[in-house]
């Protein structure tokens, strides 16, 4: 798209698009699926199995990895070196999409995006939210990340670097949020419960 110019509210556009089920497209999608089943490309059961697999992909997977890393320095270092293997060690197979885990520190705050489409570590975070796929997020987080973070209520001090990661090729990214102070006696499960999906993307600090 060329430079966007119009005079109505962008956020209202997005809400309309979500509420309007595009029945023409739904028909096309269903027709395609049914035809492929008829042709024996896959079965209805295959589709059902994939839907069930989808249910197992959620941000609780990523949160469990981070909580373990907070408690286990060796696992943390291994994760920062090889995210794919660290995911496998925790029982999550990213199936040929390599994972890079990026550590938030006192000095650096990381945030991820895919400007070209909407690549995302689905196995560890579940399906991406609609806003992550929006042209508004994809366009501006690489241009003015601090103001985009502010829209999510996240202010990064000017003493810290903001580092954006554009998932342009084969890597997929997940953020390791900073462990909050005062959590020294918390269990791994309680730590994991504190970690949010938005923290794993980097639009929130936790």
């Amino acid at each position, binding site marked *: 798209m060329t430079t966007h110019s119009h005079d109505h509210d962008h956020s209202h556009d997005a809400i309309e698009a979500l509420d309007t089920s595009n029945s023409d497209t739904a028909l096309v999608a269903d027709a395609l699926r049914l035809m492929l089943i008829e042709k024996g490309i896959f079965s209805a059961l295959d589709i059902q199995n994939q839907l069930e697999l989808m249910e197992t992909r959620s941000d609780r997977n990523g949160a469990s990895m981070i909580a373990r890393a907070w408690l286990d320095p060796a696992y943390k270092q291994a994760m920062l070196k090889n995210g794919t293997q660290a995911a496998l060690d925790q029982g999550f197979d990213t199936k040929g999409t*390599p994972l*890079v885990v990026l550590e938030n520190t006192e000095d650096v705050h990381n945030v991820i995006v895919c*400007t*070209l489409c909407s690549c995302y570590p689905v196995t560890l975070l579940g399906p991406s939210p609609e806003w992550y796929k929006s042209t508004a997020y994809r366009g501006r987080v*690489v*241009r*003015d*990340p*601090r*103001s985009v973070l502010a829209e999510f209520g996240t202010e990064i001090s*000017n003493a*810290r*670097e*903001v*580092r*954006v*990661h*554009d*998932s*342009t*090729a*084969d*890597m997929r990214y997940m953020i390791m949020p900073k462990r909050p102070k005062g959590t020294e006696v918390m269990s791994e499960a309680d730590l994991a419960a504190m970690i949010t999906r938005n923290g794993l993307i980097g639009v929130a600090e936790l």
Partner: protein
Amino acid sequence: MSEALFNVGDRVLVRDLQAEEGVQGHVRAPVYCRGLIGKVERICGVFGQPESLAYGGDGAPKQPLYRVRFSMSDVWSDYAGEAADHIDIEVYQHWLRAA
């Protein structure tokens, strides 16, 4: 497979293969980073070329893939954030030259 040409820390320039060589179709170097100089942050491995894979090709010759770090103020002349801010982008070797 193409041999790896760059090491961590090397300065590299992102080429514009669409302008230079008339490459058409599915490319993964966003327009905003073309012509920019950054530093190799890590070597990610070797992967098939998207220009080929997108049209049923085998992606050969596979290319080393690099994460390249750019200073935000190099990317945007009127960058509103901090001087220390950076952006890391994955770029295939055939889109890079030494700088």
